[in-house]
């Protein structure tokens, strides 16, 4: 399979008053086309930051220090170096080619706009030409069907509208509609774009199995349950059929039965749309349900990357092993990982897991282990191999 995103030597640092936090430290990771890659790890392992770095949304005081993130997409001209793109090009990618589903659906939605308005916004931003084309068709059908006096009187207006929408359909930045959209009151003459976006929105909501989609589109976020909100957020992320969907703990705030519905939805979406998915989670059970490949992170570094079966059946890195043993499984004794999570401000030298590692060697303290391929598509960063 071909790579969709290639992350090389990515470092993200946070410059806080207490000191510099190395949130991500020289990360190498590939996301293949059409796969679901799970990123698992505990708090502070840098899994969410990896997701945010791809979209260049690292919050202040964080900074992407170095590295490269290459996004391979034929439609937008081969390989794009995301970290070097201008902000307006980046904005054309966010929500369009790469989109994101956040952990807390309640916080991801704006409370003062309806669900429909918020999803329409995606279409109005990224699919303006398409909307213009559809609006023109609608006006043209009015022109050809209209008979009688009323239609005759409206005819000049319709002709003007048809011209206006065809301009929007043709160019990315046509002068006349752009001028209109800056004038209060007059911008309402472009209402057909919004109508078309609204229709697409309802289709989108139906796609994520929301019953009575037209009614839900007119609702405000507080009127929906957690599961419904998360469905709406997923609909928003999928609106432009992205090449890559990043889901940051999308089921953490949901109940088990609703979570099961969401995981089923994610699996179906992936099969239908062929998008790649990055699934960030701390729940190993959820990861084993939806992911094809897993990347295990600890304290900003990658420990192990392999297929799901490989990770669960033959975990190689001591941290992966310890993490799997810490999950309560009936009939098995719970094993804990000794010690506490690595201090982000003063991380241990060498391999960051060495103070808690049962098989640590003197070498582990001194130098950082590199990722090594120990099997087919199975990479481990540990001196044991």
């Amino acid at each position, binding site marked *: 399979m071909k790579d969709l995103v290639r992350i090389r030597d990515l470092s993200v640092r946070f410059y806080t008053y207490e000191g510099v936090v190395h949130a991500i430290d020289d990360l190498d990771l590939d996301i293949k086309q059409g796969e679901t890659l799970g990123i698992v790890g505990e708090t502070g392992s840098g899994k969410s930051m990896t997701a945010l770095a791809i979209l260049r949304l690292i919050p202040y005081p964080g900074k992407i220090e170095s590295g490269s993130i290459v996004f391979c997409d034929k439609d937008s001209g081969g390989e794009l170096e995301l970290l070097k793109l201008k902000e307006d090009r980046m904005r054309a990618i966010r929500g369009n080619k790469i989109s994101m589903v956040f952990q807390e659906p309640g916080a991801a939605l704006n409370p003062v706009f309806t669900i429909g308005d918020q999803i329409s916004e995606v279409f109005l931003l990224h699919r303006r030409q398409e909307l213009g084309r559809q609006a023109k068709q609608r006006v043209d059908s009015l022109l050809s069907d209209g008979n009688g006096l009323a239609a005759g009187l409206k005819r000049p207006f319709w002709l003007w509208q048809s011209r206006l929408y065809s301009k929007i359909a043709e160019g990315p930045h046509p002068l006349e509609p752009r001028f209109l959209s800056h004038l209060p009151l007059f911008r309402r003459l472009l209402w057909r774009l919004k109508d078309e976006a609204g229709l697409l929105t309802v289709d989108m909501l139906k796609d994520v199995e929301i019953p009575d989609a037209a009614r839900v589109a007119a609702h405000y976020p507080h009127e929906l349950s957690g599961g419904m909100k998360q469905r709406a957020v997923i609909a928003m992320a999928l609106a432009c059929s992205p090449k890559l969907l990043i889901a940051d703990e999308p089921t953490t705030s949901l109940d088990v039965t609703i979570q*099961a519905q969401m995981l089923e939805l994610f699996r179906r979406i992936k099969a239908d749309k062929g998008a790649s998915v990055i699934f960030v989670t701390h729940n*190993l059970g959820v*990861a084993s349900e939806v992911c094809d490949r897993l990347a295990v992170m600890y304290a900003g570094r990658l420990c192990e990357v392999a297929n799901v079966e490989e990770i669960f059946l033959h975990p190689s890195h001591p941290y992966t092993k310890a993490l799997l043993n810490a999950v309560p499984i009936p009939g098995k004794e719970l094993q*804990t990982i000794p010690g506490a*999570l690595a201090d982000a401000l003063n991380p241990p030298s060498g391999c960051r897991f060495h103070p808690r590692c049962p098989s640590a060697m003197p070498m582990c303290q001194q130098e950082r282990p590199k990722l090594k391929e120990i099997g087919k598509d199975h990479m481990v960063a540990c001196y044991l191999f």
Partner: protein
Amino acid sequence: MVKAVDGVSLAVKRGQWLGLVGESGCGKTTLAKTVVRLLKPTSGHIYFDVPDVVKAEIEALESAGNNSGKLTSLLKENDLGTFSGARVRLLRRRAQLVHQDPFTSLDPRMKLKDIVAEPLRIHRVLSGEAQKTAVKELLGTVGLSAGQLGRYPHQFSGGQRQRIAIARALATKPEFVAFDEPTSALDVSVQAQILNLLKDLKKEFGLTYLYITHELLIAESVCDYIAVMYLGNVVEMGRPEEIFHTPHHPYSQSLVAATPVPDPKRRVGRILLPGEVPSPANPPPGCTFHPRCSQATNECRESEPELKLVRNDHYVACFHPL
């Protein structure tokens, strides 16, 4: 009016680790809070460690079929719901609660030593030097060092804070502790540490636990007995292995099936529950689960099923148990 907990009958035996499982809004937390009398029940009775003499007297009166005022007054007298003042305080000395989120359950302006000493002070158990040594001892039992006594909650990690909350709950040497999702805000590795700590404490002090969780895997691996709640009702009770391998209530069955297990071979066999949990302010009539149940019949829509014994110690509230 919201019926958060509606007609629940449940018994926790001495020395038991009872797991209470259910989704959000099913009334698990309300039940735990009522047991330690942070809430007053609207109706119903809760009994906590009724003395054997009184128990024998009640049983004798009941078997005699004597519906005299004596029986009702005896029952009322021992009901937690009617306690007030000193009796509530005495109860709370013996029954404690550990809250869900250790980031909000500790006063940010109190030092560790004051947090743990507070129950000792309120219940006037110990004071002065004895109190200080007791606090140090408590911290030792939950695995915190005495050097951290002067620190504030924000200086501790989530796992450490939960340890502080547990130390505080154990300060008055209770016999019964209710845990309200104590590990839901914690990482997997820390969760394992806390669960092992709870196991050790239970053995050491002979405690009885009411453990609330929404994660079935935890309930199955640590609890002795499990009660599954749905919308204010207990729908099934039984031993963990029975609930997991032979669930009789359709809800427990789909809950078990919906729980993701970290094993990529076990991906199949999902029962997806349609819809969502209805609002407890306006619950459906009859069996509250019937709108989402695949086996629902007219009987389920009209009348409410009661908990019935199906096997030894396994109770189900369903007209058509699986």
